[in-house]
């Protein structure tokens, strides 16, 4: 093997290393100020901000900063998380004013010269600190019947589908029900009655599934006064989705489906 030159060698760290930070592999550390919206109805009806200065590493995420506070400084800090790897959808929160998963947001990608603000997602009742009541969100989800409805007898093997038919709704199968989209929608903020992007995304997943027979019913449900027509195309939902789902596009496709069915 020839000696690799300096330019082609894979750097020990993908993070930009300062000259002084020693050899490869050493992760740079930096100080951040974490500013968290706190609310505990057992002590006060008022919400407040708490700030901590923490020394974190280039590989750390907002979730790691929250863990550091909870495990080392203030055990009363309350938030949801299960998988810590962007799968379960339990730690959507408002980070620097944008809905993000704390477990998928690297601290180094944020502006660390200013305090990093973390708030609960908007539009749902806050229960404690970063935990909100998700029930209104799941209520809408249940209403669109998020399960396969098929009236023909079950075949002996699986229900076959062509790759093209599968592709039709591929994008909306990726949803992890984190509520980042619905709680970023200004129409949902107003009175919380709007079905919201997540319910429409999950309806889309079945409406455009060739094996499903209840598309008409779901379109009927979403033709409601609080259904797709409340969408004002602000794209907040597409911007918020941690799975990169084209949420606004899915909503538009459902609108078009309702329109074509009516004509």
């Amino acid at each position, binding site marked *: 093997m020839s000696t690799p030159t300096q330019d082609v060698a894979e750097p020990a760290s993908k993070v930009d290393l300062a000259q002084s930070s020693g050899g490869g592999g050493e992760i740079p550390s930096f100080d951040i100020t974490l500013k968290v919206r706190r609310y505990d109805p057992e002590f006060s009806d008022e919400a407040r901000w708490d700030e901590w200065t923490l020394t974190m590493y280039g590989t750390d995420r907002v979730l790691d900063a929250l863990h550091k506070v909870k495990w080392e400084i203030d055990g009363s800090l309350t938030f949801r998380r299960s998988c810590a790897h962007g799968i379960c959808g339990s730690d959507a929160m408002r980070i620097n004013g944008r809905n993000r998963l704390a477990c998928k947001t690297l601290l180094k990608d944020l502006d660390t010269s200013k305090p990093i603000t973390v708030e609960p997602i908007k539009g749902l009742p806050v229960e404690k600190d970063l935990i909100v009541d998700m029930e209104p969100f799941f209520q809408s989800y249940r209403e669109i019947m998020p399960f396969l409805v098929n009236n023909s007898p079950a075949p002996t093997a699986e229900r076959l589908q062509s790759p093209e038919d599968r592709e039709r709704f591929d994008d909306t199968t990726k949803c992890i029900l984190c509520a980042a989209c619905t709680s970023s929608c200004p129409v949902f903020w107003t009175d919380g009655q709007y079905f919201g992007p997540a319910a429409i995304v999950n309806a889309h997943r079945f409406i455009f599934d060739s094996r499903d*027979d209840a598309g008409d019913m779901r379109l009927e449900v979403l033709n409601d006064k609080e259904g797709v027509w409340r969408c004002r195309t602000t794209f907040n939902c597409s911007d918020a989705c941690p799975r990169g789902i084209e949420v606004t596009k899915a909503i538009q496709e459902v609108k078009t489906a309702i329109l074509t069915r009516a004509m």
Partner: protein
Amino acid sequence: MTATNSEAVLPAQGIEAPRSGRVDPKYLRSKTTSGSFEMAAWVFMRVSGIALVVLIFVHLWVNLMVGDGIHQVDFGFVAGKWANPVWQFWDLTMLWLAMLHGTNGMRTIINDYAEKDSTRLWLKSILYIGSTVIIILGTMVIFTFEPCLLDSTTGEPLPRAVCPN
């Protein structure tokens, strides 16, 4: 929905899927069965929006750019335009579409921001009454416009009146 299974659809088996038509009203979000009103309103906003782009920009162009531009606009200019049925129809369409479009837009905004049902009712009542009055008055002006205004005491035409002779 290109149902691959559609050829094989048999009578539904077992329990009918939920919401298959007859839903107990107590499970519905809104009491009022508005049918597809919201859909119609959504389509109307887009259709009238497209029409308004043409109507408004031709209106602005003809009034402010053609001829002497902004300096030509006076009582006589308006009288001249409304002597032509095309402009009567143009302005009437613009009035109705802009008013209905604007009113529906305001209805949306009130639905969004009014928190109490009573506030919502009040705001919408004021909106609908206001819009109706403006649409009726505007329509009357276009059709009953009198270009030849006479002074009530002397019977002479007023300074800018446009009278035949």
